[in-house]
């Protein structure tokens, strides 16, 4: 348990030193938002209905970048090989890395969401706890499978390409439901309808997390 925590803290510390991943994540996320703002600027009535999709595209983008970064750090001096030699279940490495990427992604999401509020002229208040719930569940699902796939991608030559290529199709069910849920919250406020997408998201998250946790070891051994 404290090993998971140690890995998480180490990633935090590196990020604190370099500010690398988070800046990259925010930058690309904001570019996506701004570009949409440009494209949709003239069509005011359409904006609110497009926001959930745009938001999650920005999240997914920045999340992919973050995952890539988090494993690139491990690759530089063969650090991953150091991690693989620790006397503990390798699942701890998975959970530590997942926790770290989840944390970064949630921070990025918070900032991007605020940016979206400003850019698209939205106001939210009561929706916030619901949104948080959706963001957290979606992010857990995203990083659950994303961490496993990064570990696959990091060992290949095509590293930075392979990750999104694998991740986006896999993550689509979660992404679609997250968009749906966000749309319900922002545009219909019929919270009863949230049940279906949230259930689906949670189900996928749990399935993905379990499979990934179990299979992580297989992916890293050479």
């Amino acid at each position, binding site marked *: 348990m404290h090993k998971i925590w140690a890995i998480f803290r180490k990633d935090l510390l590196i990020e604190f030193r370099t500010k690398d991943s988070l800046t990259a994540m925010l930058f690309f996320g904001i570019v996506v938002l701004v570009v949409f703002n440009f494209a949709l600027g003239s069509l005011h009535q359409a904006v609110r209905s497009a926001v959930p999709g745009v938001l999650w595209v920005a999240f997914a983008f920045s999340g992919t970048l973050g995952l890539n970064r988090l494993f690139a750090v491990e690759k530089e001096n063969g650090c991953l090989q150091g991690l693989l030699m620790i006397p503990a279940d390798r699942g701890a490495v998975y959970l530590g890395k997942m926790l770290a990427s989840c944390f970064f992604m949630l921070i990025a999401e918070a900032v991007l969401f605020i940016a979206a509020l400003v850019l698209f002229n939205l106001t939210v208040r009561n929706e916030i706890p619901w949104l948080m719930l959706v963001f957290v569940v979606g992010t857990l699902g995203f990083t659950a*499978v994303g961490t*496993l*796939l990064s570990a*696959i991608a990091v*060992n*290949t*030559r*095509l590293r930075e390409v*392979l990750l999104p*290529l*694998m991740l*986006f*199709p*896999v993550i*689509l*069910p979660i992404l*679609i439901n997250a968009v749906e849920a966000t749309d319900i919250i922002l545009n219909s406020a019929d919270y009863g309808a949230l049940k*279906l997408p949230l259930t*689906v998201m949670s189900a*996928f998250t749990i*399935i*993905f997390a379990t*499979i*990934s946790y179990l*299979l992580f070891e*297989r*992916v890293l*051994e*050479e």
Partner: protein
Amino acid sequence: MSGKAQYRLDILLGILLFAGMSFALYMALIGAPTERTMGDLQRIFYFHVPAAITGLAAFATNFVSSLVFLLRKNRRWDALALASAELGILFFCMVLVTGPIWAKPVWFVWWTWSPRLTASFILCLLYVAYMLIRKSYEDPERKASVSAVFGVIAFVDAPLVWFSIRWWRDIHPSPMLETGGLDPSMRPAFYACLGAFLILFLYLLRRRFCLETMRNKVDGLLLRLDEMR
């Protein structure tokens, strides 16, 4: 199975395939009645839907063999996983080609991002990614286990393709087989085509599987040769 029995089985399957295909073609193009509103266009149905079902069956095969490989670590299961993934992509490409051909006259567009279509496309992409993973690992052992892991994960997404249609309104029609909407007069042709596609799948699967195991064998033999030098 001995080599000879294998050979016989291949011949048998080949004959079955030829007969089945001929019959299915006849049924689909001539035997089945012409649909009222869409006319002959509807005959695409006899290729479109069986291809989709066979493709899903191929991906299911991939899932099962990946799982078994992860448990048993036998390279034969990896070969089977590879063969079925390739065939799944092949059959889904058929869906993705026949679908738009049908869609253009019926919906007046080649493509829309409806859930069913998006899901089919994504499913295809998943297995393209699977092939990419296979390509980017050189070590055969690692390739096998990593791609098996991905095969398992990819198939978790597959149900989405089937169920997506129920969760969202979709331009793509409901699976009338389940709702019982298919006119009884069209059923024989449909089942004939489905059968033919499944035989085709089995036949190709066997050939591809044999090819892959032979490749593995040749690699092993070459290694032994190197060792002896």
